């Protein structure tokens, strides 16, 4: 058991210590810099794997907890711990971070500074996923946002259209930082209001949750705070119409940062909603979520249609991310154990899939110096391995069975069918749109006759080391997708109680609906029981 006490700090601080170590390494030793980065993210990955395999599903709740006072005068604690949701997202982040470090071997300019910022970013995101104190949470949240600014501004690339700059990287990074900070501030207002109105003198999430369960805020207060939190965190989710920072942010960022950004950073928003907004403000959630369910349909369909019109590979994947995060938000909005489990599973599946997609596009861009779809073609001749991974990413994205995305989208649909059938139908339509643009990308990039300008210049990932990041990501998608049981059980141990607690608070409507159905119920139930016995 002793390892459990320092498992989370190990995962969290390994990259931070790595970043500190890097400051001591001379500039002219880029290989050493890279090795240190691989080592520390590898430690985090091993820790995350240990955490997920040793999480006690039967016990549930927060595990591997660490609790130290930080600023006791203000009731601020350094409180870490993960539940089933957190542990899955830890793994997602550890996978994306580790493979991102491997992919970053192609960075040649100011390597040391790059990895320092990159490892800081990784630390921040780990911190968010394991924080159980609002202050701690917010601290790490900002820590994750800030390094994006230099990472995109210095190592990024302009988004071009027909050869001229459409969005410069400075514009993209400025917009991203301001947008996310603004969202964080809106959320902060909500958090402070929560702190003030509760009068609890603590930022500790489990404590707050217990207190609010006994003495909830008034319905009016909850209805005021919930949208602040939802929009504030929804900006990073990204919720329509606050999404426009994300596709161009993805597009301008260097590949490894895009991987983390689309793979993990966007999940911070939906994670924060699940971790903070839902359990602390159940009545606010019940009041506002029907609106959310309709808005996120815009995410899904609109994002898909905009992706159809793009020709820059990264913008296509960027808009597809904002489309797919719509399913996550839809799963949250449906608020059933199935749909919420599906939503978290989709956070995992989509994270890995997008990381894979950006890793592939990064490889393409490094070698061909273009991501403009009409300029590409026939690359399967030169880079069959990458092309194979590209087909896999496209299929995972279109929700092919066997990948985690299929299971999670199915669960969201099944979970939400009773509440929002129209929205679910629109969501299913989104899957069709996804396959249209994804296949267009695959065909336009990899298929067709070999282009002479690429012959001899474009090289496949040949060595096992070059293939490693792709193989890790593909395997993660396939394993969780074809045998989802263990991960779903893990998630259910947390989502089930969460939804139960929220719906317990649902005012009036719940008892009514039970009464409406109850007269018909016994007869049918017994009838169907008889028949299942017959089978």
């Amino acid at each position, binding site marked *: 058991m002793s390892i459990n006490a320092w498992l989370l700090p190990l995962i969290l601080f390994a990259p931070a210590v790595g970043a500190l170590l890097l400051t001591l390494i001379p500039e002219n030793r880029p290989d050493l810099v890279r090795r240190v980065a691989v080592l520390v993210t590898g430690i985090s990955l091993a820790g995350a794997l240990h955490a997920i395999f040793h999480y006690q599903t039967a016990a549930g709740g927060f595990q591997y907890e660490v609790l130290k006072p930080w600023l006791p005068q203000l009731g601020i604690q350094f409180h870490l711990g993960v539940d089933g949701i957190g542990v899955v997202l830890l793994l997602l982040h550890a996978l994306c971070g580790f493979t991102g470090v491997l992919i970053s071997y192609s960075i040649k300019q100011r390597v040391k500074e790059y990895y320092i910022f990159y490892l800081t970013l990784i630390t921040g995101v780990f911190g968010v996923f394991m924080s159980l104190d609002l202050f701690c949470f917010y601290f790490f949240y900002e820590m994750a946002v800030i390094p994006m600014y230099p990472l995109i501004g210095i190592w990024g690339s302009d988004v071009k259209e027909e050869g001229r700059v459409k969005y410069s990287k400075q514009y993209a990074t400025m*917009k991203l930082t301001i*947008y996310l900070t603004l969202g964080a501030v809106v959320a902060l207002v909500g958090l402070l209001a929560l702190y003030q109105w509760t009068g609890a003198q603590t930022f500790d999430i489990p404590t707050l949750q217990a207190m609010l369960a006994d003495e909830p805020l008034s319905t009016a207060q909850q209805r005021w705070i919930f949208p602040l939190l939802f929009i504030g965190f929804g900006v990073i989710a990204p919720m329509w119409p606050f*999404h*426009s*920072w994300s596709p161009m942010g993805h597009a301008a960022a260097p590949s490894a940062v895009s991987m983390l950004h689309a793979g993990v950073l966007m999940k911070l928003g939906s994670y924060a909603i699940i971790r903070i907004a839902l359990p602390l403000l159940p009545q606010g959630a019940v009041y506002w979520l029907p609106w959310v369910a309709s808005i996120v349909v815009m995410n899904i369909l*609109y994002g898909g*249609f*905009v992706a*159809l*019109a*793009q020709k820059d590979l990264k913008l296509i994947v960027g808009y597809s991310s904002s489309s797919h995060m719509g399913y996550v938000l839809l799963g949250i909005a449906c608020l059933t*154990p*199935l749909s919420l*489990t599906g939503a978290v599973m989709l956070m995992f599946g989509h994270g890995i899939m997008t990381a894979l997609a950006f890793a592939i596009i990064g490889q393409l861009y490094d070698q061909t110096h273009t991501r403009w779809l009409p300029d590409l073609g*026939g690359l*399967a*001749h030169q880079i069959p391995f990458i092309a194979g991974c590209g087909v896999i990413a496209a*299929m995972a994205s*279109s929700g*092919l*069975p*066997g990948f985690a995305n*299929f299971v999670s989208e*199915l*669960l969201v*649909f*099944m979970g939400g*069918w*009773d509440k929002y059938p129209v929205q*679910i*139908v629109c969501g*299913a*339509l989104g*899957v*069709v749109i996804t*396959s*249209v643009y994804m*296949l267009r990308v695959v*065909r336009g990039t*990899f*298929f*067709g*006759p*070999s282009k002479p300008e690429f012959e001899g210049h474009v090289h496949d990932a040949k060595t096992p080391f070059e293939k490693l990041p792709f193989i890790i990501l593909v395997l993660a998608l396939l394993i969780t997708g074809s045998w*989802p*049981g*263990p991960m*779903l*059980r893990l998630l*259910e141990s947390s989502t*089930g109680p969460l939804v139960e607690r929220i719906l317990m608070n649902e005012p009036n409507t719940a008892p009514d609906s039970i009464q409406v159905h109850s007269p*018909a*119920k016994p007869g*049918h*139930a017994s009838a*169907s029981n008889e*028949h*299942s016995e*017959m*089978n």
Partner: protein
Amino acid sequence: MVEAHSAAAAVGATDPALLALAGKAAWAILLTPLICAVAILLVGIHRKSFAMAAAVGGLATSLICTLFLFFQASQGHLAVPFEVSVTWISLGGLSIPFGVLIDNLSLIMTLVVTGIGSGIFLYSVGYMHDDAAASRYFGMLSLFAFSILTIVLSTNWIQLFIGWELVGFCSYMLIGHWYAKPSAAAAGNKAFIVNRVADFGFIIGILWLWSVSSTASDDRTVHFATLMARLPVLVESGAVPVATLSVIGLLLFCGPVGKSAQFPLHVWLPDAMEGPTPVSALIHAATMVAAGVYMLCRTFWLFEMIPSTLNVILYVGAATAFLAAALGFAENDLKRILAFSTLSQLGYMVMAIGLGGPVAAMYHLTTHACFKALLFLGAGSVIHGTHEQNIWKLGGLTRSMRWTSLTFLIGSLALIGFPGLSGFFSKDEILVLAREHNLPIYLLATLTAGMTAFYTGRLWFVAFMGKGHAHGHESPPVMLGPLFFLAGLSVVAGYIGIPAWLGEHHEAFHWDVALTSTAAVAAGVTISWLLYSKRAIAAGSLVRALALPQSFVENRYYIDDIYTWYVQNIQQKIIAAGCAWFEQNIIIGAVNAVAALAQGLGRLLRLFQTGVVQTYVLVFVAGVLWLITRYLAVR
């Protein structure tokens, strides 16, 4: 973790040892191709002979296991239906099993898949011998075998859907096998997307069916056997209105409309001929496109309850049968003629379902799988030998490719329903059904039989007889073997009692129906003979006389054009471009406007910063004086 349970559903007592063995065999049928596919894609991607051996060996293993189960079941040792399954997803009130359901229906379909499949796999060894990417081809072929078996042996809707999507993926990969050809890549995309559109309806149907499957929200099921027992009760008690069920049925029917290429989503199948010919034989003739029909048979208990949906199915099937046969008249590509013929025959099968005859549909599916696979493999042999697909550039093949021509002739005769061959019996069943239930449909079906004979005759007389001089060389034995095997099957499949096996006692032979259809067939063949062999009628004058329908047919009723127009003009230029405009100008524009506002405000305030110290002092003093006067005024 993995809870495996096997249950003998029927009352028949089965020896427990045999049951355990049968369970293992059932799993082996399903999983061997998967294991082989994984092995090929992981370790054999650069080892061509390993890939070939693994793929053929894997499917042959499945075939042996199927035969074992088939004989055990037909001897009565093994009680069917029996089911083995594991729980794939178990979550709250949701439980999705993944397993193998063995009954007479799935056994016959598994035999078709593994039997004909093995032949085609073997044929591929010869056909793809010189292909650089043969390993990928065989890997995908094995994966396809697993996927289609997932459908066939499925115990529930979700598993069926999983297989459904996976066959679509394999089809996409195999159609686009020669991806360097833009037309092949485009055809793959088209097939996948058209199927996706259909599956959109299909999955909604599954969700809806699942949601009405129980009145208690934690007791819902997608399991076939449970639904089969439960739905009639629910319908009877009024918990599920028949109207709802009809809509669900229509949505579910969307799946087969896509997968079995029914009108108006048939457009992908002719293009799918871009793939290697064995793929056309296996996937786009014998098995995958038949999966839609199989699904309708598998779940016929559901459609039985909703006559209005059955009617829709009937008319869609009949329309497909007739319209596709007409498309065969004007086609010049050897494989595409066969593709239209496949469409037409699939229409027959779906029509049979609509007439309430799943046994007839399944019967025709089986015989069609034999002779259509034979025809495609024959076409493949021709293409392999001559590198030519245009029937007008072929001709005289009976001389240069004797064995291929012979087997092709057998296949053609089976297709048109030559008395005594398998197609004759199975088509007869459908025609009898049609005459009983719906006279106009019967007439249409008989007409279609004549049209089938016409385009098949045209194909035969032009490409094989003729005075042409296609320089072909006969194919190697590894390709001829499967041809003979399938030719044999095409002859005998009508005599082995498939309808009886599927549980229909054979009715008396209907001489009138048989004679009428044979007359139609004879007429069709004769006209094509007169036109294309004897040249008694100048084809040119006929074309001129039929100019309007001719252009209509040559352009495939303009359906492809309509879809292309929709995609290019509506979807891309209006919806997608509109959304992109909105994004760029409204959403990004609004954000930029906020930024511009802040900037403008800053620019305005900057004016006060003159940099002249005296101005500041002046303002300062004026302020102080103002304060003093205020102070004095208050005093």
